[in-house]
């Protein structure tokens, strides 16, 4: 090894001892201490931290649930009921875990909305976006597997419907489905492997989250104005500023999730899942988890089996190429007068898709789902490339500090030249 390697010196000898052998202290100092955050970041930028905390909470509560859960078709349902009734604080573990999944998706959806609206997916953060979509995909798979485990009616029939999607693939479909299930229908072999995979995938997610965070730290976080940090005046250190801000967000989140866990723990679950799985009776109305409903709506909007499956997976796959569909160099929708409204329309449309995805696919609901499907793909394939081409973006601020000298303190400092006001300088040069 390089004998001339520069070793960081700290005041604490124990830290120095570790640092000399494994430079992890300086790494954390660099990435989570001195890491520069654009000073204009709003609370939307706390959702990445919230998502990480939620992932850890899900893993911890999941491990403790696994200590009392039995992955066998004859015992799974009863073991979950035992967790609810007999295991000390079992009800709390389970309600944290089941509502935590819903909140995880709420947070990640907001995180994605933020990335889309403020153009965080654009150069140079494309790979970061791709890793994020990959995490989203893994989350959907994990939540689906987990939803099967309580072995209620919705568990069983949800698993049946989703695994049957694979049988739509020509020629190999049926064989692939049987291989995935380990049986000709959802059975004990299926439950066993779903449990094994549900246990391991969160750790895979954790790994990809590590890459996702490492990638964003290379070029730094985006911000509401979508412009790069140009001088030290544009940023604040992660510690303590962003950490404190994230902590405030975390407290608010804690209040919200506690309110649901303690006062409405079944608000986001289906009552039919408290009926044990019965392979001979399909519930009158199979409902997906709300967070998968937009994609379920797309599946049902198409009157053809294979077509529906392809479009549903296509709806997720198209997210991967968003950075290349968007031709505009301007990141933030705040400076894109046309695209902004199409983007808002996209969010409303996605919400509407989710709403009809929870309702029977007939009449007006089916019509809404079909219109929603058209807008979903139209937004990516037509609107996004086209608007980037014809739109005239509004004038970008010269720097992040410039935003403040114009908006907050227009009388002090030379905002036009991007020179921060004395007041702001004093504030940021800590």
């Amino acid at each position, binding site marked *: 090894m390089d004998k001339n390697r520069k070793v960081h010196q700290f005041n604490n000898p124990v830290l120095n001892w570790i640092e000399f052998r494994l430079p992890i202290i300086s790494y954390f100092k660099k990435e989570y201490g001195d890491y520069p955050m654009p000073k204009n970041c709003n609370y939307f930028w706390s959702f990445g931290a919230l998502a990480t905390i939620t992932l850890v909470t899900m893993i911890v509560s999941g491990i403790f649930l696994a200590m009392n859960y039995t992955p066998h078709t004859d015992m799974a349902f009863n073991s979950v009921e035992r967790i609810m009734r007999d295991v000390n604080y079992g009800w709390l573990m389970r309600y944290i875990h089941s509502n935590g999944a819903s909140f995880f998706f709420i947070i990640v959806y907001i995180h994605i909305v933020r990335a889309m609206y403020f153009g965080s997916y654009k150069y140079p953060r494309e790979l970061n976006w791709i890793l994020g979509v990959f995490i989203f995909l893994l989350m959907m798979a994990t939540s689906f597997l987990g939803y099967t485990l309580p072995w209620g009616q919705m568990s069983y029939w949800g698993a*049946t419907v989703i695994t049957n999607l694979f*049988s739509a693939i020509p020629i190999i479909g049926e064989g692939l489905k049987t291989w995935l299930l380990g049986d000709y*229908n959802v059975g004990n072999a299926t439950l066993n492997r779903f449990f094994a995979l549900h246990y391991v995938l969160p750790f895979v997610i954790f790994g990809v989250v590590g890459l996702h965070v490492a990638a964003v730290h290379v070029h730094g976080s985006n911000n509401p104005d979508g412009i790069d940090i140009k001088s030290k005046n544009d940023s604040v250190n992660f510690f303590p500023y962003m950490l404190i801000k994230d902590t405030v967000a975390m407290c608010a989140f804690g209040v919200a999730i506690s309110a649901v866990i303690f006062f409405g723990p079944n608000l986001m679950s289906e009552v039919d899942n408290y009926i044990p799985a019965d*392979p001979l009776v399909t519930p*009158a109305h*199979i409902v997906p988890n709300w967070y998968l409903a937009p994609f379920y709506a797309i599946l049902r909007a198409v009157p053809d089996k294979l077509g529906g499956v392809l479009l549903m997976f296509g709806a997720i796959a198209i997210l991967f190429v968003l950075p290349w569909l968007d031709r505009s160099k301007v990141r933030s929708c705040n400076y894109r007068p046309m695209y902004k409204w199409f983007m808002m329309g996209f969010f409303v449309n996605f919400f509407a898709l989710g709403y009809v995805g929870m309702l029977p696919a*007939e009449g007006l609901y089916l019509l809404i789902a079909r219109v929603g499907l058209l807008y979903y793909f139209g937004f990516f394939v037509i609107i996004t490339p086209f608007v980037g081409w014809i739109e005239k973006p509004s004038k970008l601020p010269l720097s992040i500090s410039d935003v403040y000298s114009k908006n907050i303190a227009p009388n002090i400092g030379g905002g036009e030249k991007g020179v921060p006001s004395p007041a702001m300088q004093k504030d940021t040069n800590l």
Partner: protein
Amino acid sequence: MVKKNNNKRRDFLQLSTLTLGGVGTAAFIWPFLKSMSPAEDTLAAGSTEVDISAIEEGQSITIKWRGKPVFIKKRTKDEIDAAKMVQASDLRDPQDDADRVQKEEWLVLVGVCTHLGCVPLGQKVSDMKGEYDGWYCPCHGSHYDTSGRIRKGPAPKNLDIPPYSFLNDSTIKIG
């Protein structure tokens, strides 16, 4: 000249090492993948014998075979006629009623919708039977006729017919 030969030798060694390594890896992975296929005991979950002497005309029972519901229906004259009247060529999955039954009053079906695997309604008197008076899948709205053929909705195929045989007048062996 010597150098060139050496390079060729190297290429060969590299290529053959990679190939052998690839084959070895594949051979190692195969048992793992194969272990996910249905096990021997699952495959052996054989056949079921059903007493059908108590089934009245127009009545239908559901039994479990290999974990799946199987519908056994004693059809009425009207239902048989309705099933026979249809031109097979007009159907999405063309099949004559005669090809779907062994004795025309007995219809035996795997009760699993060919769309996404739900169990269609129509076994109970109070159930919705769909527009063709056979079965109706509540999940995504597929309609099946009195021969279990797909007539309307997203399902691509007719309800499957399991392998079965009449052991005598009152017993069917399924599987």
